[in-house]
């Protein structure tokens, strides 16, 4: 009797097991409908596995069977509710196939019937990522209030995410504008908004908590960008307002009643101002330094009457020279991309660290591009002076903030292409000809569940060379203590 039971169980298990593996699948001449869309993307070796789900409108996907073949024939296989790859084996496969292509064969059991889709490639880039991971702010894309939010870091080699600072620690503060110096978090800055406001400047792990709002400036220091020397950090100071669209597909507008650009000298605890960056008639905004530190890029727009003329808020991309020894600015502002002539507006200039390009976002007006469906990624080639929309990565929804990897071969940017409201992170690489690869959504362990259920937006992403080591206990104490260092204005 016992033998009979064991035999029956074995038969059942065998049949069950057989049912979970493709058996004479029907071959269809179509690419698999997968989420995220990883078909023909280019990824760096060593990145977290590109797990995905098969999504079908034709029935319930009961099982997914995926085989990944490397150029040398090494195979990786997974079978489950969704394609979930072993991290170590995935790393091995991608490391061994640098500069080559992986071929994925996907079978899906839909309503009890196995279907085999056409194979698709995933390209492994020759360019290393050379970054530990990403930093980003995660927050619900709200309007005037927010619940849990924080600045987080994500190991790009796996799926681990760590909070750098969260508002659960400190009585619901808002944290924003975090930036490291050329992806190196030894120089790190972020802003604390609200009751315990501050600007935190960390150099080699030593944190300085500056007064959030400077009386001379009349505002707080936001949108930071480090000088490559690590001595200076550029900010803008903005009198920001919001307007809520009553109707249509637009939700809100952000406009500044005034804004200026300034540079903070971390050694002297001084703010460097210049009349060319602090004009009354113009709003200077979103600064960034060139990789050699000799130029300060910024955007500028003729001040308008808001909210009445918010559609006339159009920014050009300009630059001014900067001498790091004296801390002085040049006497001339150059317009290096005239967006106004195109009846457009430029924002978030980010020079590549190799000095070849400037990445920016272009939209119809304004600078808070994430709320502009039409906003796109553009690139300016500094050797030719030509700018072009990066059509190979843009979408019909907002494609907004971005940053380069340290080697200027990879780029991370925010996009609302999934649904038009929630921003997610996409990575892409640039080749020697200045063309970008098809972007891929930041991998997650169970991406369909994660992205479909997540009610958060990812914003202001940046690469980070190392894990950010912020002593959160000291940070909490510092935030709550309200002890702030005032900043002098030179």
């Amino acid at each position: 009797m016992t033998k009979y039971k064991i035999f029956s169980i074995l038969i059942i298990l065998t049949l069950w097991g057989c049912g979970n593996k493709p058996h004479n699948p029907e071959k269809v001449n179509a690419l698999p409908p997968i989420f995220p869309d990883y078909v023909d993307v280019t990824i760096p070796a060593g990145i977290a596995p590109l797990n995905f789900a098969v999504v079908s409108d034709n029935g319930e996907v009961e099982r997914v069977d995926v085989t990944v073949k490397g150029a040398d024939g090494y195979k990786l296989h997974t079978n489950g509710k969704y394609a979930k790859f072993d991290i170590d084996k995935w790393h091995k496969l991608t490391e061994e196939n640098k500069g080559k292509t992986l071929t994925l064969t996907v079978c899906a059991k839909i309503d009890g019937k196995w279907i085999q889709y056409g194979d698709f490639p995933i390209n492994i880039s020759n360019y290393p990522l050379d970054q530990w991971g990403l930093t980003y702010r995660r927050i619900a894309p709200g309007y005037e209030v927010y619940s849990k939010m924080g600045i987080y870091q994500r190991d790009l080699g796996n799926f681990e995410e760590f909070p750098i600072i969260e508002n659960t620690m400190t009585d619901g503060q808002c944290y924003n504008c975090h930036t490291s110096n050329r992806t190196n978090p030894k120089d790190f800055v972020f802003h604390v908004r609200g009751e315990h406001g501050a600007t935190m400047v960390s150099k080699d792990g030593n944190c300085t908590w500056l007064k959030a709002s400077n009386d001379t400036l009349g505002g707080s220091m936001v949108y930071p960008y480090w000088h490559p020397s690590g001595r200076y950090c550029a900010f803008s100071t903005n009198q920001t307002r919001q307007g809520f669209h009553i109707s249509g597909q637009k939700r809100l507008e952000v406009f500044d009643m005034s804004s200026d650009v300034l540079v903070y000298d971390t050694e002297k605890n001084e703010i460097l101002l210049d009349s060319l960056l602090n004009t009354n008639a113009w709003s200077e905004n979103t600064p960034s330094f060139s990789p050699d530190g000799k130029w300060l890029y910024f955007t500028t727009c003729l001040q308008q009457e808001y909210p009445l003329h918010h559609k006339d808020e159009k920014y050009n991309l300009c630059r001014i020279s900067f001498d790091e020894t004296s801390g002085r600015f040049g006497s001339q502002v150059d317009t290096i991309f005239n967006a106004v002539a195109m009846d457009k507006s430029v924002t978030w200039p980010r020079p590549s660290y190799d000095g070849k390009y400037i990445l920016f976002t272009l939209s119809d007006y304004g600078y808070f591009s994430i709320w502009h469906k039409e906003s796109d990624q553009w690139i300016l080639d500094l050797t030719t002076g030509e700018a072009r929309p990066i059509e190979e990565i843009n979408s019909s929804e907002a494609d907004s903030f971005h940053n380069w990897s340290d080697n200027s071969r990879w780029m991370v940017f925010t996009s609302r292409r999934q649904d038009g409201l929630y921003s997610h992170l996409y990575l892409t690489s640039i080749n020697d000809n200045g063309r970008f690869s098809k972007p891929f959504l930041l991998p997650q362990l169970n991406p369909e569940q994660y992205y479909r259920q997540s009610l958060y937006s990812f914003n202001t992403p940046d690469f980070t060379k190392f894990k950010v080591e912020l002593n959160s206990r000291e940070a909490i104490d510092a935030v709550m203590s309200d002890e702030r260092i005032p900043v002098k204005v030179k």
Partner: protein
Amino acid sequence: MTRKNIFQYICPLLTFFGIWMFLWLMCPQYLLYHEQNQLFLFSGSYFTDSISVPGGMADYLSEFIVQFYYVPLYGAMLTAFVLTLSQVFSGLAFRRCDIAKTAFPLSAIAPLLYTGAMSDENILLSFAVAMALTTLFIYLATLPGNLSTLTCSITLITGFVILYWIAGPIAIAFVIAAAILHRRPKAVAICIPVAFIIVSAIHYTLFEQYPLSRMLKGLNYYRVPEIYPSILFVITGVISLLPLISLVKARPHRLLAYASEATVAIFAVIYIPLSFDKPKSDILAYDSLVRQQRWHDIIEKAQKENPTDLFSLQAVNLALGITGQLTEAMFRYNQNGVEGLIGKDRLDNTTQLVTAEALYHLGLTNIAFSTTFDLQESIMNDRKSGRLMKRMAECMIINGNYKVAAKYIGILRNSLFYAGWARRAETLLENDSAVNAHPVYGQLRRNAFCKEAFYDHTQIHKILAMLALGNGGNNYLAWQYFCAASMLGGDLATLIGIYNSSPGQYSKMPIPRHVQEAIAMYWTFSHPTFEGVPFPLSQDVKQQTAALAQAVMKNKNNPAAWQKAAPGTYGLYFINKSYYGNQPEPSIKYQPTHE
């Protein structure tokens, strides 16, 4: 059956039925409020996320139960069951002590205290579940019989660690109560410092994102972080120290029995009803009626007692508007400026609820969405809301943002009470003709604001005018709101100007009573009689307005005389406002939220 045995059966039954009936019949609005501040999902990630923090199992179980608050009858029953469990387990823990058996009714004190504490709408059921789990552990700790101090301490520490993880810091009550029942006072002295060290270690190693104080007071016993009402300390103290009665050596059981019965009776009959604050109960009641779209019940409630706060007033005005009576009957109630129609921004999770409903029904879908979104974001313990998420999905369907709607609908499909709606709503996605044909969504889509403009509360009457007159002038609710806002704001010139321009279908309707009163009022500013007034005013309105004018002239400082001359009229509101300004602000102040 002896008297003391009867107590052991009857007491829990009385507690259960008493609490069930009280919660169901007397305060269903509190249950609905709790339900709308969370969204329980049947998903693996929801479960793992919940149980990955101290007290997470209690949170998970409580949120499972709170979803049934959607139907207050069931929700009240389950809550009563949980609270009764804690009484039963307490009683079982005393089973070996004769005197404790006689004092069995005292085991109901903690559940009854909690029932009274539910008058604070931010005290979460998680604490009640944690109470039940703690009393279960206390009972289990009494099973082994006599233990040495060392064995007792080890047992208590082990139990504390497990209980702390599943129920949170109320686990300390288990340590104290179990040590008392084992008559091992030294174990308390050993275990409490060890428990503190354990909690600190858990905090420092795993949960740096929370302040230590929250780890010690509970992450989810109270909706507002960093606040811990004293009643929760009291209940923890009662659970901890109630076992002291087992130490009583005296034998006057009958006296003790009567005393314990009396104590419980006092709690049940006096303490609990008195703990519930009427103004707050009324606000929550209005909110629940608006949520259930019981418009006639709202009006009936207001007729019994005039609303005295803006929140309730907005609910009454919305009900009057939806039933087509706003411009006929609104001044029968205490009006209070335009804010009594649509509130300004208040960054908490309650005061804008009715405003969000009004914005939605008016057809200001974008603003309804953003207001609802922020309402959800302002839930202080970072939970989501089934009610609000459903409304957000509705807004997105109306606006044609189907992908965002699909996201919310996909989440709601994992719930119990919103799944049915989500399945039906799914058929509308990417299907414009189905949405257009929908009796509610189609109409709201047709009512949408046509021009590109920013929302500005100070210009609300202009927005309402454009909303009412746009799209062929079919938005009668907006038309009523426009008239009401003009009257409340004193902008009679605009109101009369628009009436003069014969706006669409509204000009073919009889002029509403209150608008007639406003016109009559406006006319009397510059005319001695009603002769020549260019609108068909009723004789009654003319007489009342004239009587009011006379009453004001004769009795300048006697509002009672004005009231007598023209009760429930716009004229009376206008005169009162001119003399005394607006009525007071809402009496209930909610906790500020993340701003």
